[in-house]
């Protein structure tokens, strides 16, 4: 692939306004497929989770999964959409063997949800409203493996192998309206939008939402509109490209930035943008041309004669609306205020994915600041070193117990880290680890005074300095005492006692 010419991003934004649109596909985590009772599971032995419906065998008839309809309504409501009192499935006809029927069952002019919006938070905390045109139900396609040919890629393949385990998995496709005004933040907005959709479906519990596994997939549409001088009419919208295969939040951001720079270079060089599908390549950070939009996109939609209209009752819609969880964006703002975190502290928590752990730790009694300190500090450090999720190491309850021990003065921070290590190693609750490892702070003044008197007696010069008012000299004695106590003493208390004994 030849590296396309790119324009400097800032320069591109001076000349052009980026115009965006997204199609996000969400795989629902129902137990069965959209139109058959085969398990909603793929990745295992090929062609084992299939029924005659999924293979499009003659005489088979699809039947709608009720749970998938409910999930779709919930998602529509969470996107601020209206739910259609009557919606229908349609056949999208195309010749490609990823579905055995030569058509995909989708929805066309009567989607289940339409006309919503989603509030998205940009990295600097500004809110941006993304308009949602529609959300519709459809089925996922099977997986093709291209064999032979020089590159193993699709062009030049000698044949293709098809696994239909994924065929018929329930999908909701969320389509935005045209998004204007993202301007310089277009790449960040793209990332934040997909991230918000992910948060929403996770909070609804309707999808596993793992982008790397394709549970959540984003097609990004982008075009550039040339800026005009003030007073002049706005220029016409540019020709758009649709970038597919964007499988991570980071890729979404990079792909948008790349397309802006690529299109700007072509337009400024006097060229024209071809309306086409482009493929994102994670490894090179570039997009390459796919097929141009053409006759192949003439899908000849018509109402699916094998299925009946979906007409959810007003009662069902209200029941699902009442069960909606707090919107992720609103929840975050509430938590940040409740906890009194700074922007930086809160971003740190969100980015580390430890929001729920901190919620549960505070619910168990710890202060939010202590919970944050432990989760994003020592626990995150250990998790990082071991390459595991922090949440798998220790329970929020145990963290709150650990915080309580520190607050009560039973443990110093240093001792608490050792206790945490014991808890992570499965030695029991913090209390049990304190007992079994003998880690509690020595709070018996008698034992401390004996150790201090010993230390002062063995360092008469230090004693003299302290008596002369050189208080910082006490450090040597404190060190000796902490050592004698094997670190299990509260240094501040030791310091107090050292000064007291020296001047006694």
């Amino acid at each position, binding site marked *: 692939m030849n590296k396309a010419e790119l324009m400097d991003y800032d320069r591109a934004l001076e000349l052009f306004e980026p115009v965006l649109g997204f*199609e996000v596909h969400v795989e629902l985590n129902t137990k069965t497929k959209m139109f058959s009772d085969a398990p909603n599971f793929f990745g295992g032995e090929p062609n084992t989770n299939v029924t005659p419906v999924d293979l499009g065998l003659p005489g088979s008839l699809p039947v709608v999964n009720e749970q998938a309809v409910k999930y779709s309504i919930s998602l529509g409501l969470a996107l601020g959409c209206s739910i259609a009192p*009557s*919606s229908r499935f349609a056949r999208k006809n195309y010749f490609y063997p990823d579905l055995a029927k030569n058509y995909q069952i989708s929805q066309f002019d009567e989607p289940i949800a339409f006309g919503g919006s989603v509030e998205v938070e940009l990295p600097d905390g500004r809110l941006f409203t993304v308009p949602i045109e529609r959300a519709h139900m459809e089925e996922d*396609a099977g997986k093709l493996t291209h064999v032979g040919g020089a590159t193993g890629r699709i062009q030049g393949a000698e044949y293709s192998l098809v696994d239909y385990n994924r065929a018929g998995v329930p999908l909701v496709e969320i389509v935005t309206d045209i998004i204007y005004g993202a301007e310089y933040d277009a790449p960040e907005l793209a990332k934040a939008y997909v991230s918000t959709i992910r948060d929403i479906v996770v909070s609804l519990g309707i999808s596993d939402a793992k982008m790397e596994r394709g549970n959540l997939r984003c097609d990004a549409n982008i075009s550039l509109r040339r800026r005009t001088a003030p007073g002049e009419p706005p220029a016409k919208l540019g020709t*758009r490209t649709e970038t597919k295969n964007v499988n991570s939040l980071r890729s979404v951001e990079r792909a948008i930035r790349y397309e802006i720079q690529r299109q700007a270079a072509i337009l400024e060089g006097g060229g024209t943008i071809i309306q086409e599908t482009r493929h994102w390549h994670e490894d090179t950070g570039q997009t390459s041309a796919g097929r141009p939009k053409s006759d192949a996109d003439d899908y*000849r*939609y018509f109402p699916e004669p094998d299925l*009946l209209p*979906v007409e959810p009752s007003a009662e069902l819609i209200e029941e699902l609306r009442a069960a909606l969880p707090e919107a992720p964006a609103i929840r975050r703002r509430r938590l940040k205020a409740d906890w009194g975190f700074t922007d930086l502290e809160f971003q740190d928590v969100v980015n580390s994915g430890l929001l729920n752990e901190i919620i549960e730790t505070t619910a168990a009694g710890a202060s939010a600041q202590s919970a944050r300190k432990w989760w994003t500090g020592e626990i995150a450090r250990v998790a990082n070193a071991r390459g595991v999720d922090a949440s798998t190491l220790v329970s929020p309850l145990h963290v709150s117990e650990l915080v309580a021990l520190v607050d009560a003065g039973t443990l110093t921070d240093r001792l608490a880290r050792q206790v945490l290590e014991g808890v992570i190693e499965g030695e029991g609750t913090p209390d049990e680890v304190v007992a079994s490892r003998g880690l509690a702070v020595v709070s018996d003044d008698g034992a401390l005074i004996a150790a201090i008197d010993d230390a002062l007696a063995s360092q008469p010069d230090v004693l003299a300095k302290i008596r002369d008012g050189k208080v910082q000299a006490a450090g040597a004695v404190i060190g000796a005492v902490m050592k004698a106590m094997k670190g299990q003493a509260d240094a501040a208390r030791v310091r107090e006692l050292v000064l007291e004994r020296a001047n006694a």
Partner: protein
Amino acid sequence: MSSETPPTVSTSANSRPAGSGTPGEITTDQVAHLAGLARINLSPEEITKLTGELVAIVENVAKVTEVATPDVPATSHPIPLSNVYRPDVVGETLTQEQALSGAPDHDGSRFRVSAILGEEQ
């Protein structure tokens, strides 16, 4: 955003299926185009013949509009049913052997199809 997305969203049960334009205007070009989309090889004679037949069919069907008034909802199904659902419970699946038994070609676990030019939808 995509070309497959209809320009307007209708939620009315009265909305007509996509592509139901003015009837009777079937041209040989349209038939040739459709034949291409459907991967059917038609000779020019067949296209001419089919065009005539399709015009007759469409005109016949269009007679419905003589009695259909705006208060008659469009229908895509002869029985007035809706909300026919299936509970989300796993049923019986085919074995891999059964699944592949009708395939013209397979590699033991997957269907084998001739090389595909074009891309995933």
